[in-house]
């Protein structure tokens, strides 16, 4: 029994057609007990469909879902140890907050006093004791969201499912509530699947993120490696801001775009690996770009000028035109002088061919290495999506 309990969610090769669409095309994913996993992807990629299959509202065409070692693929929703927070909350408008939360417990035929205690405890946890006797129509969006969460949590589910639970909240509340959810989820150690199309949300609360596209999982890894080491061209473009240009590898750096602008990159191994003369999709983060005033070095080929800049307060985002048809975006510290010509170099880059990651450079050691081995150490380790690289 206890051995089973250490197992969390295990999904293997789930497929689903809806109408004429193959919506989910073979999804496999595991979540350890207590882990929070995000399904992240653009609209229409099959996140909701996957989540609904886990919750039991859709039955998969093939594949299996097991929870705590038990196969639940064939169980109806009411017999699954899962609880879902719906995107529109789906609170019952004719019941008070108390009744909404208590309904699941009453179905389990618990004694009245225990129901009372558990509802009170969970309402306290989500800060809603004052709204106990109100109807959902008399609550704000944030309060409704918390009732929905309380209704799910009170059942102490083995698996919590959330379908874009924050999308109806304003930006500030969204950040607050997602932190609350994360805090409660960690405290109760509930295995959780969280659907979102907001990458900030995913990066900030997940233990692991599954990036989905077209009904498949593109990459499944922790937020840091997802950000630093996107395994496919799609993920590189989807998660965070990234310069992605076609280019070739030459001694001491890369030539980019139709202009073949030379950009130096301090990676000794790069030329050995990629110098086959062929074209790559070269990707580098905005915080991995160095922009300096050109000063007297007027003869350098990669001289450029800042075409646009947007201040974000503690940093700025600039667009540098390095060639007639080639520009590079970069995050810079607020004090960099950008009035004259500038020179651009790249600290760390990734190479893609046919949509797959082939090479990543590690600036710390000045060496990079081809990808493909599982033994590869993680990326250089930015802990969040904030562009602190430019401040170094």
């Amino acid at each position, binding site marked *: 029994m206890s051995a089973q309990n250490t197992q969390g969610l295990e999904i293997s090769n789930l497929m689903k057609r809806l109408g004429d669409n193959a919506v989910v095309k073979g999804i496999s994913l595991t979540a350890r007990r207590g882990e929070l996993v995000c399904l992240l992807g653009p609209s229409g990629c099959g996140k909701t469909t996957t989540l609904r299959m886990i919750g039991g509202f859709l039955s998969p065409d093939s594949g299996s879902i097991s929870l705590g070692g038990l196969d639940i693929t064939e169980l109806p929703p*009411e017999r699954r140890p899962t609880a879902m927070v719906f995107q529109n909350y*789906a609170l019952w408008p004719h019941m008070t907050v108390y009744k909404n939360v208590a309904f699941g417990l009453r179905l389990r035929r618990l004694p009245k006093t225990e129901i009372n205690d558990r509802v009170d405890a969970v309402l306290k946890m989500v800060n809603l004791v004052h709204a106990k006797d109100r109807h959902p129509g008399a609550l704000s969006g944030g309060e409704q969201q918390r009732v929905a969460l309380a*209704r799910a949590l009170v059942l102490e589910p083995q698996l919590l499912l959330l379908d874009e639970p924050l999308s109806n909240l304003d930006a500030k509340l969204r950040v607050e509530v997602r932190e609350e959810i994360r805090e409660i989820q960690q405290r109760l150690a509930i295995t959780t699947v969280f659907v979102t199309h907001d990458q900030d949300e995913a990066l900030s609360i997940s233990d692991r993120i599954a990036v989905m596209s077209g009904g498949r999982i593109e990459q499944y890894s922790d937020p840091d490696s997802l950000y630093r080491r996107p395994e496919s061209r799609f993920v590189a473009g989807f998660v965070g801001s990234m310069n992605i240009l076609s280019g070739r590898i030459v001694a001491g750096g890369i030539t980019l775009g139709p202009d073949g602008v030379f950009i130096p990159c301090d990676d000794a191994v790069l030329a050995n690996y990629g110098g086959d003369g062929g074209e790559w999709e070269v990707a580098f983060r905005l915080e991995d770009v160095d922009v300096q005033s050109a000063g007297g070095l007027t003869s350098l080929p990669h001289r450029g000028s800042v075409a646009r800049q947007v201040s974000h307060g503690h940093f700025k985002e600039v667009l540098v035109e390095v060639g007639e048809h080639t520009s590079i975006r970069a995050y810079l510290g607020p004090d960099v002088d950008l009035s004259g010509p500038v020179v651009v170099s790249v600290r760390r880059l990734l190479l893609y061919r046919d949509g797959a990651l082939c090479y990543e450079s590690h600036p710390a050691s000045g060496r990079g290495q081809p990808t493909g081995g599982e033994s590869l150490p993680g990326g250089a380790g930015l802990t969040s999506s904030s562009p602190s690289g430019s401040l170094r």
Partner: protein
Amino acid sequence: MRVETVATTEGPVLTAEGPATRRRPRGSFGGTRLVSIVAVVLLFLFIFGPLLWLLVWAFVGVWHYPALLPQKWSLSWWRQVFNYPSLARSVELSFLFAPTVTALSAVICLPAAYAFARFRIPGRRALMIILFSVNAFPKIGLYITIATLFYALNLMGTFLGVVLIQLLGTIVFMTWIPTAAFAAVPRSLEEAARDVGASRLRTFFTVTLPLAAPGIFVAMVLAFLASLDEAQGTFLVGIPNYVTMPVQMYSLVSDYPPEAAAVFAVLLSVPSVVLMLLVRKHVMGGSLARGFQV
């Protein structure tokens, strides 16, 4: 105050374009309003005028032509009507048929309405239109066809025959309005109930039915009233064994002066008024309106 200031600052600009353009919309707006007020008053008179007329007639003692109101009021016609031998029986019958027809109609139509709202039924559209067409054509033709059938089945002059013929008139809205009411219950509310552990049946009774209740209630009130007021079919099928209030009305009109008929008509409209007040009290405007969105 502020509105006025804005108007004056805009004044010169508008005069430059011509004051006529400015005045016309306001004039026509006032006109529209006047027209709509008159229309509402006329409509009101058209609907309630005859009822008021009836009400006055029911209490007439003496009333000679030029006078606007009766010279003498009296309850004598009420006494006459209440002493009319078969009146009590007809009231009793009416209030036997109306609940029976309503209940039976609900039993037949509500499951159909739920199915229409929730499942993909082949030919759903065609079925709904056939239902509608039952009410769209002159009923008397339909009734006569049915009467021949009832003769064959020995249903003429039977309780069941009357119930069936009255049922016919209630089926349309007893299906359409609850279908709309069920369809208006978001599926996610039902899924949420399943999710916390409720069976399909439990979900239906705890979530779906209470939320669709206002629409269902409206439909049942309408069915009750339709049964109560149904005269044509009941007359054809029920006579002579089952004479309900509206059927009784026919013989009253021919046997007695208009005053007695007025009394009877007032009596006949009491249940309608009571039920309509009930609907107003128990059904919020929104749900009532929702009940009619098919």
